[in-house]
């Protein structure tokens, strides 16, 4: 067994990874095993998160070509990995970065929707949300109000955005890829 394969095996033992997951990881070329070991150690990945990483990395490579080490060196992954964040925030940020590479069109649409919602400038008491992974059409608009004045203000904001077509843009975005 090579040195890196031994290190991977030690990590797997420490995290009690399944044999299948270990075999899958060790099937990669050494450079890719090593690059991913750095990420796994930094994020303290257990079985489930680690398998998500393996799935996404392999799926991206199969679709776009390239190598795991190159993907893990992409700014979308590397920047959050090197950021001064706690383990959980860092894990979330790195996964989000990798998700952008795995789901480029979906993430682009999500980003466009986020920007369109921000442009509505509806204030902190109106919240617009979308179905998970944008599967479905229903847009949820939630309003919080402590009194009728606050409610009236939020409704007025919404009415203005209906009138100027900016709310329509949200639905238009959902309807196109």
């Amino acid at each position, binding site marked *: 067994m090579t040195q890196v394969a031994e290190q991977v095996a030690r990590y797997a033992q420490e995290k009690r990874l399944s044999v299948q997951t270990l075999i899958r990881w060790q099937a990669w070329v050494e450079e890719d095993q090593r690059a991913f070991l750095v990420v796994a150690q930094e994020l303290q990945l257990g079985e489930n998160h680690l398998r998500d990483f393996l799935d996404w990395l392999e799926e991206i490579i199969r679709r776009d070509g390239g190598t795991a080490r190159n993907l893990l060196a992409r700014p979308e992954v590397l920047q959050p990995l090197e950021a001064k964040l706690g383990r959980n925030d860092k894990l979330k940020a790195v996964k989000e970065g990798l998700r952008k590479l795995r789901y480029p069109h979906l993430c682009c649409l999500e980003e466009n929707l986020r920007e369109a919602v921000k442009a509505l400038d509806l204030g902190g008491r109106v919240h617009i949300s979308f179905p998970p992974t944008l599967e479905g*059409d229903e847009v949820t608009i939630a309003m919080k109000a402590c009194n009728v004045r606050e409610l009236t203000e939020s409704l007025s904001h919404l009415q203005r955005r209906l009138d100027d077509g900016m709310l329509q843009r949200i639905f238009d975005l959902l309807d196109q890829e």
Partner: protein
Amino acid sequence: MGCYNASLIFSIKSKEGAGSVCKSSPSNVGHMTLYQPDEIFVEHGEEHAPVVQRALSFLPDVPVRVVDKGWERALAAQRERDSFTAGKRRLFFTRQRSPFLEHCPAGTPSLICCNYLVVSLISNCPMDCSYCFLQEYLANNPTLKVFTNVGDLLHEVAVAVNRHPARHFRIGTGELSDSLALDPLLGFSADLVPFFAAQKNVLLELKTKSDCVEGLLPFDPRERVVVSWSITPPAITDTEEHGTASFAGRVDAALRVQKAGYKLGFHFDPLIEYPDWEKGYRDAFTRIFSAVDSRRVAWVSLGSLRLTPSLRATMRRRFPQTRLLSGEQVPCGDGKWRTFQALRVKMYRTLMGWLKEAAPNVPLYMCMETASVWEKVFGRVPACDKEVAHSLTEPNLSLMPPLS
């Protein structure tokens, strides 16, 4: 239970051409290899069923065992490694003891359905598409089973369609297996086509990825039989649909059955999102609709690739090189993963646009989609499942010649 060679226990004459059943066609298209099981099992009492006799005549060198009823359940309990692959290599002749006629299992309460009925003379498929739902559906019962009591099936269908003479039926045989891939071996088309050709209120659909149409050609389908092909671009056909006919082979076979008087169907299902999907499907679409007479196309369907989490895991295990898991698929309301909605709607609209250009009168429907997606693609939602079924049966049944 005994182990024999087929030619020893049954006195059968070998037919000329056995072993190369999907015969050459007029054009220069490569052909599928005939399915060759490792072993044949015949349930005790079924040895002399015509379909058994025919199959054994085509496979004289394959070992045959006569087994007791329930044999396959005992075998399944042995839990062979990758028993799904092993199951496909075992050909088992038995009787169907449950009703043949069933509602299509794709029907799901939250999704629009086309009210399709299915009959299965075969369970499991000699082909091995990486995305096939049978890997999960038949995981515990993967032996390739052929039901010998085709007469019972025909009787059951006759009773059902005669009981509802005003209702129009669409019945398919391609749910638990390919409708035609084993036809050279089993010859079921010789039972099915003449029977359905004589019915007045039912369309039979033979759904296939094969080029095994030779057995259909001698019969007059009398507008009651639709032979349909599941279509993916060659880049997908060649890498993901193992053991099937090539794209060119399917188009060639479609032309042959069209010439013989059959109506055609095309199912862009699974519709697969991959980096070059638009070009791939455009080319496939153009090749099909520039070759066939679109007036003879009974219907076209679209259905996004849909995979349960467990099927995704199976695909990863059985087909580690598959590229189909790399699409932008997300979990949907029914638990299946599909290309995310905005992108698959774009794909549906794109293909619908091409169909409107090439064959505006051909009925188009979607399989296993939500009302919301129907609304986005077609601009309206069918009032009920019967409406979808009606839109598919009426244009075709109205052209049927009267029964003599």
